[in-house]
């Protein structure tokens, strides 16, 4: 009997803890759930809070699983988003052609966008400092458009992709070296 009581206490504690977890996890549903959780359809189903009814061991387990799955999806989205936003593509001098190394990265971007169909993104085009400023604004736009076209060709809805050129205004590295220039000729990707 005492053992059962002990079990009940553990279950109640678990339920309380789960309540916290799920309420945190469920919250984004009200607002921008697609962006928060990334995966829209599964999260549409609300997590039932049975309130006054004594929870059964089975129900807790089901909720727990669902909450854990949601958490996992969120964590997965965050990891995917971080990779998506960290990996940039680079260009040859004065060119906006997608080179093979950039194409591989863009394939991963396309996979990310297919995995999370509600995500909208911003592609930023950047240049090195060598061209003149006005031309570089146009070239940065051209680079962002090239990345967008590549993704659209792989089935991504163009309405999900915005572009912006920063020309030479926002270098990753301020030095005037070949290495810095190569890093500065790039597109960056942001989840909006």
């Amino acid at each position, binding site marked *: 009997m005492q053992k059962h009581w002990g079990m009940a206490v553990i279950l109640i504690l678990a339920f309380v803890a789960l309540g916290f977890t799920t309420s945190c996890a469920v919250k984004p549903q009200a607002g921008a759930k697609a962006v928060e959780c990334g995966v829209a359809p599964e999260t549409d189903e609300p997590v039932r809070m049975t309130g006054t009814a004594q929870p059964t061991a089975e129900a807790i387990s089901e909720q727990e699983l669902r909450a854990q799955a949601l958490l996992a999806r969120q964590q997965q989205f965050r990891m995917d988003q971080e990779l998506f936003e960290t990996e940039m593509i680079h260009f040859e001098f*004065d060119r906006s052609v997608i080179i093979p190394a950039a194409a591989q990265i863009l394939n991963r971007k396309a996979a990310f966008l297919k995995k999370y169909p509600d995500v909208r993104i*911003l592609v930023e085009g950047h240049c090195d400092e*060598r*061209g*003149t*400023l*006005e*031309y570089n*604004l*146009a*070239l940065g*736009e*051209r680079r*962002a*458009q090239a990345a967008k*076209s590549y993704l659209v060709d792989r089935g991504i809805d163009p309405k999900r992709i*915005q*572009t*912006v*050129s*920063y020309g030479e*205004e926002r270098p990753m590295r301020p030095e005037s070296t070949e290495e810095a220039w190569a890093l500065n000729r790039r597109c960056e990707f942001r989840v909006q």
Partner: protein
Amino acid sequence: MTRSFRKIFPLALTGICLLFALSATANAQIYLDINEPQMRRIPLAIPDFVVEATQPSAPAAARQGDQLLREFLAFTGFFNILPPQGYLTDLGRGVTEREIRFSDWTAIGAELLISGRLVDRGGRLSFELRLFDTFANTVIAGRAYTAHPDQVRDVIRRFSAEVIYRLTGTRGVFETQIAFVSTGPGNKEIFFCEFDGNAPSQFTRDSIIALSPAWSSDGRHLAYTAYKDGGPQLYVRDISTRTAWNIAHGSLNITPAWRPGAFEMAATLSLDNNQDIYTLTGNGKIIKRLTKAWDIDVSPAWSPDGKRMAFVSERSGGTHIFVMNADGEQATRLTFSGRENTEPAWSPNGRYIAYTSRVAGRNEIFVMNADGSRPRQLTGGGGDNESASWSPDSTLIAFSSTREGVSRIFVMNANGTAPRRLLVLPGQQSQPAWSPYLAQ
């Protein structure tokens, strides 16, 4: 700033501008042909102004006046201002053509002489200023200006404009300003300064990045590019009221250029993944698409008659300067050297197009005839030199240079001689845009 600049002229100087002793100059002689690229600098002597005024402020005003006059006239690039320590005499004998012994001045090589005298007039200072031809012993220009001691700069600016007008038949640069971009505030904002770099002031405070200032030909509006809602948009700002509106068509709205004599501009937009030049009304309505090339078309620069424009295009491989009619027809390539020729600027006299070309890993300012002939390099000797902008009399070119490390604004004669730094400010300065004449 422009408003106060405009106000000062009619109000501050109480208008007593006496023309005296001009009979000898009735037959207008052109002393300086400013369209001659290899123009010789005329030796000019400016002895210290004579103080006959009794006001305590008079001596200081006289020193400020003669020094500013030397600086202003040197700035034009037309003169070799002879150093005062080499003068054989001062103006002790008098300041008029009857009193001056011109042989004292021709002996040191001076072909022109300016005398200045400060006298009392109605409780205020009066500057009497005369320009002489020392070989002909004649007065070329004579003016008297009554002013408060704090208006010396305006007096000298007006007399300098008169000197240049008498010698060249054009109005010079003294009634102009230069807009430019500075990173001083922590991000790129647009500033103004006077023609010689004096009195810099911040003009925009509304954006994270402001670029490419462009004056309307009447000097009333400034267009520029600024980032709003995450992307580059065009802004138009009424300079006197500071009222502004923004223009956004698609993700890229850059390189505005006002059509001379019209409330219209050309600019580059990116509406179908191509960066093409369009004409727009000053309020932002698209009038016409001018280019339809697959590649980049950017940086329109109107001819002064508004009938044609130079622009940058990649349509023939490399990046080159082209020219086309204002309706977009008859595009012709002008540059054939190098691979990167950008930033065209059509001279206000219509004769030349300045541009930036990449030479041996550096950006350098070039100028060519407006038909593309005779390209020649104007800058060299260090750093990147970019963004040429002509003074309204076509005699000077403002540009940005990294020759001192950080980017700063410089001015040089239109033939590339005598580059001089315009001003020193915190941060880096770029993209100078010389105003049209701003005084009435």
